[in-house]
């Protein structure tokens, strides 16, 4: 129990996540060198491609972080993402992207209402809404989105390159800047942390916690919708189930980035690193052609291992 040297406890997860990312790169490069004699992992083009793919996850995770900071969780990401993509492509034309984002708007408001006003546990309300969205998509499209091809604008955002860097990456960075600004420089950000720490005390301090929680869910749903629109651009079309693989990695990224799962603590830079880490881990496992069984085990072990190293979570002694 002595003073922590130089490193602030807040920075520890960042440093560890960063270190771990380097370790992954080294191991992966070692592997490719020994098997094929190449080192794609260190090529800018490969890294760019990974980050381009990672940007969809990154955007989802940014939104998820807002919700986790309030002490809630958003399980409706998969079908929010899918619905936004499917609606966007079926509207088409210049209104495609606004239409997709407005799906996010609606989902966020409903989630916010259910969690903050009705006070249904977010775990279960967002799960229910996810099921409803899936039902809506199954029912509405009957399997065939009337029009499922992405518009040129979506294609541009997801696939084009600007100065050799994928535009999707710029979108991710823009989202990151917005979220960082929100969290550190606005009253909304402060209120978010306060609400996540102790909603009762925050409410009694005159913070409109219902609005704050709703805002967080809105942010999450908008991010998911944006990711959906981009993903549809990347795949050139929208399809059922495109969001299925974004929920758990988003949560894992947020947590690996040092955000406390019960809310109130965490920094955006951590989430960003968490996403990079997960994306690289995934791509290395797939380069190694790791069978699914080991993939799952490694995935689990990495999360546990890193959190153990963070050594967070104070024992309650009071």
């Amino acid at each position, binding site marked *: 129990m002595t003073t922590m040297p130089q490193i602030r406890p807040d920075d520890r997860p960042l440093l560890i996540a960063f270190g771990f990312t380097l370790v992954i790169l080294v191991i992966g490069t070692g592997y490719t060198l020994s098997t094929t004699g190449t080192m794609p992992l260190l090529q800018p083009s490969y890294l760019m491609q990974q980050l381009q793919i990672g940007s969809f996850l990154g955007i989802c995770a940014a939104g998820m972080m807002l919700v986790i900071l309030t002490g809630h969780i958003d399980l409706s990401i998969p079908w929010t993402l899918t619905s936004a993509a499917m609606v966007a492509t079926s509207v088409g034309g210049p209104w495609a992207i606004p239409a997709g984002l407005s799906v996010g708007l609606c989902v966020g408001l409903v989630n916010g209402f259910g969690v903050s006003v009705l006070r249904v546990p977010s775990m279960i309300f967002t799960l229910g809404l996810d099921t409803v969205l899936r039902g809506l998509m199954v029912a509405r499209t009957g399997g065939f989105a009337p029009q499922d091809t992405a518009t040129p604008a979506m294609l541009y955002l997801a696939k084009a390159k600007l100065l050799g860097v994928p535009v999707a990456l710029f979108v991710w960075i823009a989202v990151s800047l917005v979220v960082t600004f929100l969290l550190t420089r606005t009253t909304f950000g*402060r209120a978010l942390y*306060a609400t996540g720490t102790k909603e009762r005390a925050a409410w009694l301090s005159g913070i409109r916690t219902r609005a704050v929680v709703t805002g967080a869910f809105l942010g999450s749903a908008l991010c998911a919708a944006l990711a959906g629109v981009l993903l549809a651009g990347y795949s050139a079309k929208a399809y059922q189930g495109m969001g299925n693989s974004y929920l758990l990695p988003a949560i894992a990224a947020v947590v690996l980035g040092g955000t406390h799962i019960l809310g109130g603590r965490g920094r955006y830079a951590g989430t960003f690193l968490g996403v990079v880490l997960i994306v690289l881990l995934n791509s290395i496992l797939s380069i190694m052609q790791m069978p699914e069984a080991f993939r799952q085990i490694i995935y689990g072990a990495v999360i546990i291992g890193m959190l153990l190293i963070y050594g967070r979570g104070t024992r309650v002694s009071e």
Partner: protein
Amino acid sequence: MQNVPIVELSDVAISFAGVKALAGVDFACHAGSTHAILGENGAGKSTLIKIISGVLKPDTGTIAVNGSKVGFSGPADAADAGIVCMFQELSLIPDLSVADNVSILRPPRRFGLIDRRAQIARTEELLARVRCEDVDPRAMVRDLSLSRRQMVEVAKALGRDPKVLILDEATSALTQRDVETIYGLLDELRADGVCSLFISHRMHEVEALCDRLSVFRNGQHVETFAKGERSDAEIVRLMIGRDVTAKFPPKPPIRAERAPAVRLDDLRWEDRLKGVSLTLGKGEILGIGGLDGQGQKELLLALFGVLKGTKGTVTVGDGDGLATSPHRAKTGKNRIALIPDDRKTEGLMLSLSIADNIVAAALDKVASGGVIDPGRLDAAVRDGIARLQIKAGSPAHAVRTLSGGNQQKVVLAKWLMIAPDVILMNDPTRGIDVGTKQEIFRMMRTLADEGKSILFYSSDYAELIGCADRVIVLYDGRVVSELTGEAITEEAIVAASLNLKGEVA
């Protein structure tokens, strides 16, 4: 008392993240005595008893029980050694029944399983000993009032057959009658050879109860002496290192006519408020008295917009109605602030930094268009810390690292930042040391003089007498008495609290 001390600490030191909470403490207490531990907020009293009761482990030093060294690995070990602690924050489980709570650690068993019937019988017995026959052993603790809970806590402690009984500000929420019960109990226990360690900021309680006193200051054991060896003034000087002359600032002369800041007419809510009418004048400190749970808390909450479904008319300032949420209350034409009684869950966000807590209510004051101005924020925080003389290493530290008194100051600082017109206070000095209390009272008077209105509930009659311009006493959700000036006396308040006259004012 020349025998082996029942608990003895030698050269104990502990620090938290570099902050020394206790250093080089030698302390001993003996069987058959009631031993007071005194000190200002943050002196290290709670830390001391947490060490004795096994909650915290000292960094250095040893603990001996009955002369033999022990190393507790948790409260359970200490309980095995006969050390039973009533913490300042209650240690009852709200979702378990009273009986479950009372026998939580060593329940009576049958066939290896908890015997519910025996448990209830045992609980009834213990409750009878603390004169709380009105509490149903099957009731959930969460349904009890704070004072009943404290009494259940006492029953629970008794049920453990303590050799050493520690009460850390355990009487802070108790009514007079219960306090008397506890006095009686402690006397009985002393006769049985139990050592009681008693922490309180109420000198008269210490006076009435204890035979020995130990004073702590800045994490150090200053002195231990028998009752009567020192005068009150000397004790206070030992505690805070200076003289405290007058506890309360002088009251201004009584003014008959004040412009009303808040007017209540027949305010009703559920079965807790049964038609409260009163007027709070500008620049007035209006005290609320009465036994615990007579609607005082509800009255304050109602004015702060927490309660729904209130009836009756409320006029705030000139013509505003009742706020519907704390946010409305805070941002209305007449700003209202509430200092809640439970600062750990209602007043503070414990793991957030001191700075974040201080600005929590006034975020828009340090921001323009929702964007925070770091310069203004820092200035505001510094101002708040300075104004209330909060003892803190850095504003970036979590509030939970502050001692209770300083935590309370953070709550006050938070609300002063919105420059409220009406301040509602629910027992703001609970667990606060004399020095700080004095500061708080002085601040209240200054605020009043600036034209702010204060509605102030206290469980301590002395505070009402010393501080309020006017006192109303609530009984069963009604105002039964209104006292002004010289008429504010302990007798008058007690009589009104018990509704002895049976009349409704």
